[in-house]
């Protein structure tokens, strides 16, 4: 199950996000890391230092692309310039699959640069699935959509978030990047049982899993990626891999970024859970 058609039949292990404060450490110390996830948009440029560093990383590590502004759920058509640049980068990184979010963020050509929540309607599912197919056909590699953290729900929604995710994934025949931290954050903000969500996701479509930390405020939780992973999120992760198997896992840490070792050690905690799944498989 872990190596499936939605992650290019790979078995990638535990990775971390490639972030600029760690470039020097990675290039000089060459730590052993299963893989790095890059933010595609940071490298969809024509030249300069970021691409030179990426090429150096690619010489030694496996890299997977993760996007933040394709906006599969925006009602407008995909931005052709975005697609062209994305495909150029895909050829450079040879990423086996590509992920972006199940959200919207642009309308009438204006970009909010945020991951805005979807209304869970059949119209939205149809439009989103069509766009995912269009992107995948252009990019020519598998695409996985990631569930986002959200802070608002719409009156027009006609289904739960997980039903919407399944509807979109089924219609688009795409993979799922299951972010268990986002499930936890949204479950707290919208008062649902996060395990119901994890248990409802089609296991055979999960291409990758995200873990991360967040910030708790008085009335809501914000997905800030600036803390270690908390225990309730690890429990969700354990349940997720119990269902989907030994799946490519990535820790996101994007703000107040600590040392490379600290980030990597946090990610490697996933091994505890992955090992128990492997053990169960072996028995």
């Amino acid at each position: 199950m872990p190596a499936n058609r939605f992650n290019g039949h790979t078995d990638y292990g535990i990775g971390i996000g490639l972030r600029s404060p760690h470039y020097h450490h990675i290039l000089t110390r060459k730590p052993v890391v299963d893989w790095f996830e890059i933010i595609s948009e940071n490298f969809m440029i024509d030249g300069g230092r970021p691409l030179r560093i990426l090429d150096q990383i690619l010489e030694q590590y496996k890299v997977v692309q993760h996007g933040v502004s394709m906006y599969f759920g925006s009602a407008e058509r995909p931005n052709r310039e975005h697609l062209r640049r994305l495909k150029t980068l895909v050829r450079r990184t040879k990423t086996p699959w590509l992920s972006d979010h199940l959200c919207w963020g642009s309308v009438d050509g204006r970009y909010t640069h945020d991951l805005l929540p979807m209304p869970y309607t059949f119209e939205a599912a149809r439009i989103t699935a069509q766009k995912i197919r269009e992107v995948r056909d252009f990019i020519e590699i598998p695409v996985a959509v990631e569930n986002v953290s959200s802070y608002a729900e719409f009156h027009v929604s006609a289904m739960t978030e997980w039903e919407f995710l399944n509807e979109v994934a089924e219609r688009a025949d795409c993979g799922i990047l299951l972010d268990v931290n986002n499930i936890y954050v949204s479950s707290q903000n919208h008062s649902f049982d996060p395990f119901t969500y994890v248990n409802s996701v089609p296991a055979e479509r999960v291409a990758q899993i995200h873990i991360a930390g967040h910030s708790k405020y008085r009335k809501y939780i914000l997905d800030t990626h600036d803390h270690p992973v908390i225990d309730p999120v690890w429990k969700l992760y354990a349940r997720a891999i119990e269902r989907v198997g030994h799946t490519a896992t990535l820790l996101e840490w994007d703000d107040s970024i600590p040392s490379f070792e600290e980030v990597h050690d946090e990610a490697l905690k996933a091994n505890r859970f992955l090992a128990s799944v492997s053990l169960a498989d072996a028995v």
Partner: protein
Amino acid sequence: MKLLNLQRHMARAVMTPLTNSERMRAVAPDGRSMRAVASQIIKPNDRLTSFERLEIYNRQYWFRVLSAFAEDFPGVRAVLGGRRFDAMAKAYLMDCPSRSFTLRNLGSRLVSWLQKHPAWARERQSLALDMARLEWADIEAFDGLREPSLKPEDLAGVNPAKLRLRLQPYVSLLALRYPVDELLLVVRKDSDDLDVASNTFNERHKRKRVSAVAKFAPSPIFLAVHRLDEDVYFRRLDREEFAILSALHAGKSLNAAIEAALRNSPIALADRAAHVEKWFHTWSALGWFCRREKSAKNEKVAPRR
């Protein structure tokens, strides 16, 4: 409500400027009640009203774009002062919201916008414009395309009356009224030193430095903003160097560019050939030239000033 309609409603609300205390406005600039907008599309829950839930996105939007914009233009911020810069940034982003999938392009229209809105910089308009041009050129130089550079052997035997050279897309030529290159380096150094000095000291030092430059009589400089070994540099140019490079960039032949640039030059006739040779040697060593006819990409490069 249809998806497109809902997204238009929400985007308009999210991109509505915040109050001075960084909260969502009760009334949008066009008179809409934000409570009504929020209630129409967003459900409340047991802890937050529809308005409060929408406000989370409204605040996130502005925090994100303002911080990205300030990161790109620390020099303009130093020229205008923090408070005026923040107000200017909000006005600019209201008029020129992002139309790109990347935040990198957020400031692409700042120079033309500042030209149309001189009130933001008042008596420092020229200084602010120079700084905005420099900082945008810096962004372009950082990640602009590098095409294969022309080598001396590529030019062997080519008729200079017909030879047309093109500058690398990452090179910008700037004619500026103030020496903002020096000022920007000071501003950046101050920011780097933040860890070892107090904010107050730094702000005071920066203000003093900006005031000193602003009080100068304009002292024109010519600058090439370029990249070498992936680092961005500001290279001062002689007037004639700037004229030759600008003419080449505009599509003139090598001969025509040199002739036009040196026509009224104070450089003695006998010394001109040596100067030209030295300049071309430097520019070639820096890899600034590439073939003119090769790529249509050049047409997309912002006009150099």
